[in-house]
Structures are given as C-alpha cells and as structure tokens.
C-alpha cells in the first residue's frame, strides 16, 4: 500500500470550524493562547468575531465554555490535548459532563506527535480518562477526511464530546466519498488470520503493519474504531469472530484505552483472547515522530513485529 498523505488534522480543525461559523451563528472557538498551533488562527482570520482568546488559563476557559453553552452557543475548545483533558479535568467533569453542556472539546497535539515537546505535553491516557467519564462521547478520527466529518458531526450533536485531533500530517485512509457514522466502527481491511483493532491516526500504521504481515502470508482483518464511546460492540464482536484472535493497537496507554474497551466488550459479549499493543504504563519522551514510533512500538514495522511475536507465541 502506498500511503497518500492527508493534511494535518489541526489545519482541518481550523478550516472546518471556520466553515461551520459561516453557516451557524452559534459556533465559537475558545482558545488558550495556542491558536497559531491548533490553527484556531484560521477561524480568527475568517471570523474574528467568533474567536475568543482566554489566555493561558484552561480551567477558566473550560468553565467559560460551559457557561456559553447554557446560553445556546456552541464553543469549540482550542488547546493541546493535555491542557483540555487533564489540566481542567474537574471543570470538564463538573461543568460540562455533569451538566451535559454542549461544549466541543476538540484539542489537537494528541498522541505522540507534538513537535518534540516531551512528556508534559504528550498525554498517553486521554482515551482512558475521557471514555471513563460518564456522558462523555469520545472520538478519535484516523485522518483528515474523518477529522472534518467528525467535527461537522460534533457541531450538530447536542451534548459534550471529546474529539482527539493530531498535529502532523498522517496518511489518508478515507476518500471524499466516506461518511463518518458516529458510534460505528469500520472494517478497513479484510483478512482471516488475525483481527487488528485500531483507532485514531494509529489506524494508518496498523494498515501498514497489515501489508507487511501479508507479505509473510498473514492476512489481517483491520477494524477502525473512531468512536471509543459509545463503543460499537457488535462490530467488535463480528471482527473478533472473523478470526478468533484479537490484537488492539493504539497511540496511547493500553490501560483503559482502546485495548481496555475492546477487552471489556469481548469479555462480556464474546470471550476472545485479546492482546494489546500500545504504551505500557510509561510516559513518552520528546523526539522526532519516527523515532518515537519506533521506540514505543507503534510504527508499521514495529506493530508487525509484535503481531508476529504474539501469533507465534500463541
């Protein structure tokens, strides 16, 4: 498979929210002084009256967004994932999740690609935290196409949602004819030997691993789970039944994230042997993207290696 690179999800964020502003007067972007990074600056340029700068004060920013939502507005949050999820976690919990506020928590710099910032900025447990929070929808688009679709979906959805976006360009998986279906997982590759379940930008590298495995005669079935909550249990069960052997792959901690979600679902609905590939109780250091993928076992090559090892040990 020759990967066609998509555009960075953060640019898609700026462009999509700007486009939404043009058609919906309720939409605002609320930024914590990182608009030039998250590309909220695109919104500011197109619709200066829809851009609200809150300074470096994320707790207040999330609280202000909650208050705005009660006034019928739809705030999109612009900051880094770590400063939208954990820095103001209690504000998200009490003012947004517990009230059902129509706030769109749409930070970028999710996963390992943060421009070599290091462990303060690289959050490994956002999937686990946000999907565990009652009432919080959790979505992790795989590419630029799906990011745009998910953002448009979020604008129409009534209630709080978390959408993890990325900083850097990653391979494009879906064409323009793709239709994001909230709460539905998608088979992105068919195979009968092992089921790989993946989410977010990692799905592209999981597909790359599947091609490497195919060269060895191992045909992987790949399920992309863009919506971590609500989880598409039926699709996960079906994907598990396709091969009887499940391996999850995620750009985040395997504790409570996608791996946890899949293990929970299969444990209850269709007990299946599950292995989890991802970060294993570690924080992530700074470094170039490719180096990090290699170190933490998330490049296509490294995923393929781990899948082979798991299958040969079984």
């Amino acid at each position, binding site marked *: 498979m020759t990967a066609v690179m998509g555009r960075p999800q953060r640019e898609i964020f700026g462009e999509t929210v700007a486009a939404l502003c043009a058609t919906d007067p309720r939409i*605002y972007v609320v930024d914590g002084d990182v608009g030039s990074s998250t590309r909220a600056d695109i919104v500011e340029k197109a619709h200066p009256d829809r851009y609200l700068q809150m300074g470096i004060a994320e707790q207040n920013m999330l609280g*202000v967004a909650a*208050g705005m939502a009660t006034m019928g*507005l739809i705030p999109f949050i612009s900051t880094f994932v770590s400063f939208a999820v954990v820095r103001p976690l209690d504000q998200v919990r009490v*003012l947004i999740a517990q*009230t059902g506020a129509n706030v769109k928590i749409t930070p970028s710099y999710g996963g390992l690609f943060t421009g070599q910032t290091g462990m303060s900025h690289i959050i490994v447990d956002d999937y686990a935290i946000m999907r565990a929070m009652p009432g919080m929808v959790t979505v992790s688009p795989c590419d630029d196409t799906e990011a745009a679709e998910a953002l448009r979906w979020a604008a129409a959805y009534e209630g709080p949602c978390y959408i993890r976006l990325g900083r850097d360009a990653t391979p494009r998986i879906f064409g323009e004819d793709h239709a994001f279906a909230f709460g539905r997982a998608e088979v992105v590759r068919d195979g009968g030997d092992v089921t790989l379940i993946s989410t977010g930008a990692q799905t592209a590298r999981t597909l790359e691993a599947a091609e490497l495995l195919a060269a060895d005669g191992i045909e992987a079935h790949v399920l992309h789970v863009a919506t971590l909550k609500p989880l598409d249990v039926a699709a996960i069960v079906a994907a598990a039944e396709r091969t009887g052997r499940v391996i999850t792959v995620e750009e985040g901690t395997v504790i409570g994230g996608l791996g946890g979600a899949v293990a929970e679902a299969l444990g209850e609905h269709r007990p299946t042997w599950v292995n989890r590939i991802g970060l294993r109780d570690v924080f992530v250091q700074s470094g170039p993207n490719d180096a990090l993928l290699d170190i933490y076992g998330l490049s296509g090559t490294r995923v393929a290696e781990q899948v082979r090892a798991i299958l040969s040990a079984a």
Partner: protein
Amino acid sequence: MSQAAANPAAAPVDLDHLREMARRIRVELVRAVYHARAGHLGGPLSAADLLSALYFHELRIRPQEPAWPDRDRFVLSKGHSSIGLYAAMALRGYFPVEELLTFDGANSRLQGHPDMSRLPGLDMSTGSLGMGISAAMGMALGARLTGLDARAFVVLGDGECQEGEVWEAANAAPHYRLDNLVAIIDHNRLQQYGWPGEGPDGRIPPQVPGEMAAKWAAFGWRVIEVDGHDMAAIMEVLARVRAGDGRPVAIIAHTVKGKGVSYMEGRYYWHTRAIKPEEYAIAMHDLGEPEPAAEGAAR
C-alpha cells in the same frame, strides 16, 4: 444599561418584605437540614440576606418559566450552600416549600450540591469550588454575544477564593468588559476547619493577600463593599451597579457565618453539622419561628 426600564428591579424596594424573606430562607434551610440530619448551615445562613435580595427583587426571572431565555442568570459557586438557594427558590415559587424536606435525600431534586440536570431553575451545577465564576463569566459573555440584555450573578465564598480558577476568571472578565457580570463574595471569614489569620484555629493560609476588596480592584473589577446583612445597604448597592461602567462588578459582602442562629454565629464548626432536637428548638426560637416541642421530641 437599557434594561432598567423593563426590569422588575426598577420596582420600589420593599425592605420589610426582603427582610422577612431572608428570615424565611433561614427558617426553611435550618428546618431542611434538621430533617435531613445533614447539610451545611454556616454558609447558607451568612448568604441568606443576599439570596433574598437577589431572588425577591434584583433578579429578572420567571419562576413559572425557569428557562425564560431573557432571564438573569444565577450561579451559586459556593455550592455547599445549596439549601439556602433551594429555600429562596421554593419561597419564590419555583417548587413547593414542602419539597425542601427532601433535601439531600435519594432521588431528590434538591441534591447536596446543585444539580441543574435535576432541578429546573438552576443555571449551573456547582460544588467543586472556584468554578462558578467561570461559568457565570461564560453566561455574561454569551449574553453579550447573543445580544441578550441579561446579567449573570454569582455568589462565591471567601474561602473559595483560595482556588486559582477564581483568579483566572478575575483576570479574564475585565478583558471582555463584562459589566453584566456581578460577583458577590460572601465574606464571612470562616472556613470549614478554622480561619485564616491569628488565634487557636487560625490555621488556614490567607484567602487573599491583604484585603479582599483590594485584590478584586487590582484585577480591574468595580468593587463595592457592603454589610451583607444590611438589607437597605445591599439594595442600594445592587441598584447602583445596575448601570454598568464597562467593568465586571465585585460586591464584597461582609457577613457573619451562621447569621441568625445565636449559637452558630461566628463559629466555624457549624459549617456543616447535624442539628440536635434541643438545638433545633433554639434555632427556631432565634429565627422568630418557634415550633411545637413535639416535633423536636419526636426526633
């Protein structure tokens, strides 16, 4: 501001009525906490006059239409004083006064801390301290952005001002020139486990360095101090800030924790505590509403 003409707050102030409603708020909240055998007392008692002033005069609200879009918003940032707010709302007609006796109970709309998803008329859920002012700022900002002539009022505890988020909001609100945002600080100077300052229980770090008023002023707020139990003074201040000057408003209300109940006044350990029958009888007597001894004895 242009809202003055259409505002019920422009109606004549009936101080006797407001004082009586403050007394009734205190009676009902003490009764509810007594029946619940749990709940906060000191904080709601210190805020009762402020709540009466807001709910029975200043707030532009429609109890029969709690989601009226043009209403003024109210956020009780010191959410642990919920029973004081519930009492004010019940007396104002949002729900039957008898429902106050369900306070803190399972499946009650009157949760220990305000839950807007359960009780119509609550504009925000609170309880984790320091957050209400941010939400109120969002409401004031939202009113501006949508062209609503509504104000957002928030009552904060003074101890709550130890939370950093309060100062994030204090720093941001003047930038947006939100003179439709009114923060009232219930400055009773006592906290759950003592107080900041000197003395045997002065074990807590300061609420703010120096005087409360000076700190809000330093952040660019329009600051007015008032005796939080002097109804005439409270109403004068509320009337004065109706016309905005571009700055958000901070009213520093000097209050007495436990106000109105003799043995609770100024005693921090009545922050939250169950009331014994004999204590209940004294409280009701202090509040001018003696109840038959039988009710106390039946407990």
